[in-house]
């Protein structure tokens, strides 16, 4: 069943036509990878889904409802959570305050338990819970950004280049975490320039090029695809 359906969306920055009719689908429980080179429109696609931007044409359908013009802050409680490009932790808030902000839209009594669960998942964050987030290393900030997004109890998690700027050792950890989150039943839309890793964890993938979907296939087939191998996997 389709949890998210993106229907021919066109999104602009002023006069710049960034997305030129993008369509794809994400089913419940899937991990979907969006790959593409710099400037292809990956971030803009996530920003349009999460409500930070509004498409000028086309629709974003989530859970059967048109959310094309819903504001970002109203979508969090409906289950869409995003880890922005560059992590976006609140540097002047402590680690724990960042996690509290992740649960801002929630009003239930399970927040305390979820916080404990998050510390179980990321023990480093517990050690540093009273520290300002700005003092964490890049890898720790990425963990914090992911944990903060999970505090909202999302059904759909949007991840924008979670491996960006991380040492190779840490990249493996991030992808392990992504798989673990998916195994808990969270649907994941993963944007990556690291196509190699992304296609290893994903079920299906879409290749974006200049604001359009160039190729779409299962992750396995994409890994075998010649164009993908040449352009994104560095295989000749």
């Amino acid at each position, binding site marked *: 069943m389709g949890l998210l359906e993106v229907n021919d969306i066109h999104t602009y920055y002023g006069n710049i036509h960034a997305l030129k009719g993008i369509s794809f689908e994400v089913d419940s429980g899937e991990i979907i990878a969006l790959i593409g080179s710099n400037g292809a429109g990956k971030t803009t696609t996530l920003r349009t889904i*999460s*409500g*930070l931007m509004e498409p000028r044409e086309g629709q974003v359908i989530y859970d059967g409802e048109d959310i094309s013009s819903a*504001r*970002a*802050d*109203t979508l*969090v*409680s409906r289950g869409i*959570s*995003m880890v*922005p490009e560059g992590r*976006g932790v*609140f*540097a*002047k*808030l402590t680690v724990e*305050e960042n996690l*509290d*902000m*992740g649960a*801002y*839209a929630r009003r239930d009594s399970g927040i305390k338990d979820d916080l404990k669960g998050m510390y179980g998942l990321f023990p480093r964050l517990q050690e540093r819970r009273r520290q300002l987030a700005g003092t964490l290393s890049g890898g720790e900030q990425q963990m914090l950004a992911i944990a*903060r997004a999970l505090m*909202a109890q999302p059904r759909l998690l949007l991840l924008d280049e979670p491996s960006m700027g991380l040492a190779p050792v840490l990249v493996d950890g991030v992808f392990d975490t992504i798989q673990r989150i998916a195994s808990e039943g969270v649907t994941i839309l993963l944007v990556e320039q690291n196509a190699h890793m992304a296609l290893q964890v994903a079920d299906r993938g879409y290749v974006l090029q200049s604001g359009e979907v160039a190729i779409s296939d299962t992750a396995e087939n994409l890994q075998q695809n010649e164009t993908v191998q040449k352009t994104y996997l560095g295989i000749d």
Partner: protein
Amino acid sequence: MFKWRSDDFSWVDFTIDVLRVLIVLGVVVGAWNTLSSGRISFAQWVNLFAAGLSQGSIYALIALGYTLVYGILLMINFAHGEVFMAGAFSTVFLAEALNRTGFLNEQPVLAILLMIAFAGLVSMSVAILLERIAYRPLRGSPRLVPLITAIGASFFLQYTFRGLYGSGFKAYPGVKALQGVIQIGGISIPVVQVFVFCAALLLMLCLYWLVERTRVGKAMRAVSENKEVARLMGIDIDWVIMFTFGVGGFLAGSAGVINGLFRPQGVNFYMGFIPGIKAFTAAVLGGIGNIPGAMLGGLFLGVIEAIGPNLVLAGLGIPGANQLKDVIAFTMLVLVLIFRPQGILGERLSETKA
């Protein structure tokens, strides 16, 4: 500092350095003359200091409004002096009514709490309306635009109150419980000064608790750091911005009542202008956008204003030193902007942080 010795000599740096030296010299000579003359006793210095702290804590309460709004929108709400006036002026009527019924002197604590709540709510409403009507539609436009709007809004508020209540002064009724002095080891401090300082301190502690400990306070800090990510957390940033204006307004209104009980000359439609500029000075002094900075900046300015003229100006033989109080504040503003635009604790007042 002292860069003009090397190749990159510039007349601006040179002038600024000469200014520095002259100021330091003037302060030292003036202070030396005053202290060596023994014209002012120790007890008198303590009294000046205490009066300065009280006045300064009122500046601090108003300064917090500037700094909160700047912290969240990088905008200076130049109509904030009028937000202070609105609460102070409206509540003078409530104070008179409470005085007529005798409640003010029978239950001074309750009566003053009631007045503070009332003034706080009036100023809060004015600040929120200001944000909704005058500033929100202009968000994202060049910085000069909301600044001009703020000046227009100031005039609008001043002349609205003048139209409603005339241009005369109205004094807050005296509260018996606040009269008299407290004796501490041969030094007598007026009760009203102790009240002003403690009331302001209590309000500032409440603010600290709000910003540091509560959900909405964390949201305020998150919005001030990154609006887009704050929205991704589910924070309605328009609401948080409105709330911030409201908090700043509430503090300004309370300052209005405290000020009214402290200063006998009364309130009128124009009363917000000077305290507004002084509180702005205090906020810049402490580092605009920085909450403890605004508190310290306010106290510091109040004390400097009280002590400075007597210590430095009188020592330099300048006549009528105490009438030059206001000059001190504005000189401080200019000096801070020249020498340390980021203030004592704060970040630079800049175009870059967006």
